[in-house]
């Protein structure tokens, strides 16, 4: 690190800005199933199969074309957050609720919430509805 080196300017990122992402509301996918478990909950969600993998699996007789269900185990904290996702509360509100419920530092709660929602989003378990869509 250069002691007196000038700070690098951060590159602009495409997509939602921080404010837009925090104002968006997570919405549950209708195709997700919930099963209670000893230490929390298991979410079942249809796995996305890439066309080339699907074609290969069919040729090899490994897949009959029906949707494959994958499972995601949520711990107690994950269950609590999952129960708060109602399609109306935005990410900022959910992070504030998390900070309040578990006495977390606001930035830590925000980071936890965004990481959790990102994981759910990658699996297609939730989608983010921008604030503009809700108000309109």
């Amino acid at each position, binding site marked *: 690190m250069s*002691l*007196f080196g000038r700070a690098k300017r951060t590159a602009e990122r495409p997509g939602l800005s921080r404010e837009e992402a925090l104002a968006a509301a997570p919405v549950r996918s209708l195709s997700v199933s919930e099963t209670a478990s000893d230490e929390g909950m298991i979410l079942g969600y249809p796995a996305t199969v890439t066309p080339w993998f699907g074609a290969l699996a069919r040729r090899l007789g490994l897949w009959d074309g029906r949707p494959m269900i994958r499972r995601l185990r949520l711990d107690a904290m994950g269950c609590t957050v999952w129960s708060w996702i109602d399609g109306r509360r935005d990410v900022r509100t959910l992070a504030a609720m998390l900070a309040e419920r578990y006495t977390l530092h606001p930035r830590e709660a925000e980071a936890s919430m965004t990481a959790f929602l990102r994981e759910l989003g990658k699996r297609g378990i939730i989608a983010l509805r921008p604030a503009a869509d809700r108000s309109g």
Partner: protein
Amino acid sequence: MRRICWNGTCLEVPADWDPLALGLAEMRLGPPGASVLSVKWTPIRGGFSTEKHFRKIARAFAGDGEAAREDWRADAAGQAETSGREVLPYVWRTGGESGLGAVVHDTAAGMGALLQARTDDRAAARAWLDSLQLARPGFPREFEVFDIRAEVPAGFDLESFFFKPGHFGLTFARGREQLVLERLGPADVLLQFSTLALLAGARWPDLTLSVASEPCSLPSGHGLEWSATPGPAARLAAALLRRRPYSRLRVWHEAEANRILVAAARAPSPLDAARFDAVCRSYVTLRTRETHG
């Protein structure tokens, strides 16, 4: 206002500010999502010229901006210089941004620092500069970031750190001696189906395996401690294999803050129990510190 300390460097900033980026000798601070203040520092061995370092800064800005000497500290008139600190203030602009900066040489601490702010608010920048304290050799290093506070004995250098949601960690070293501070949370979730003993056994097996735990009590909470003192054979093996056979682990629950704090030490020679205890006593969450003073 709140105080932020990182690796011995402290300053007073607005209450809603937090570290946005941290390095071993660097921090960037600001409200969420907006880096306003950058501070870098380094120990100075030998001579140091603030003027020479300002010329480096001016050269770095020369591409698409400029940095110019200007004393933006109204009525500062050599106040800082007389307190063993030489300050060279400047203003900078680049692209669409502008701000204030200062090269600092603290002769008492033997440190050089660069403070650079993305603001034209001279009074605010002056307050940040005036509150800047640099680590002094031979004094404990202060840490006060996010929701934790600790004092680490002089001589221990910060080697690595991480701040993940739910898990913070700082690792220090002095020679072959290692000191680790961790913070886990939320405690009620971690302890819902576990205990401190089970948690420690799973996370730090090398420090708890075949070592009996003893209850310990701190002003901030109650917990358990594991202290390993090897026998002659284990000492010989450790010397041959360059291991650290002496270890101490303390895990305690700050119920009020809903956190679990952890201090661990490993060394090739017997550990200083009083020093380890002092580190543990200084290590608290800010919530508990505010409650208990």
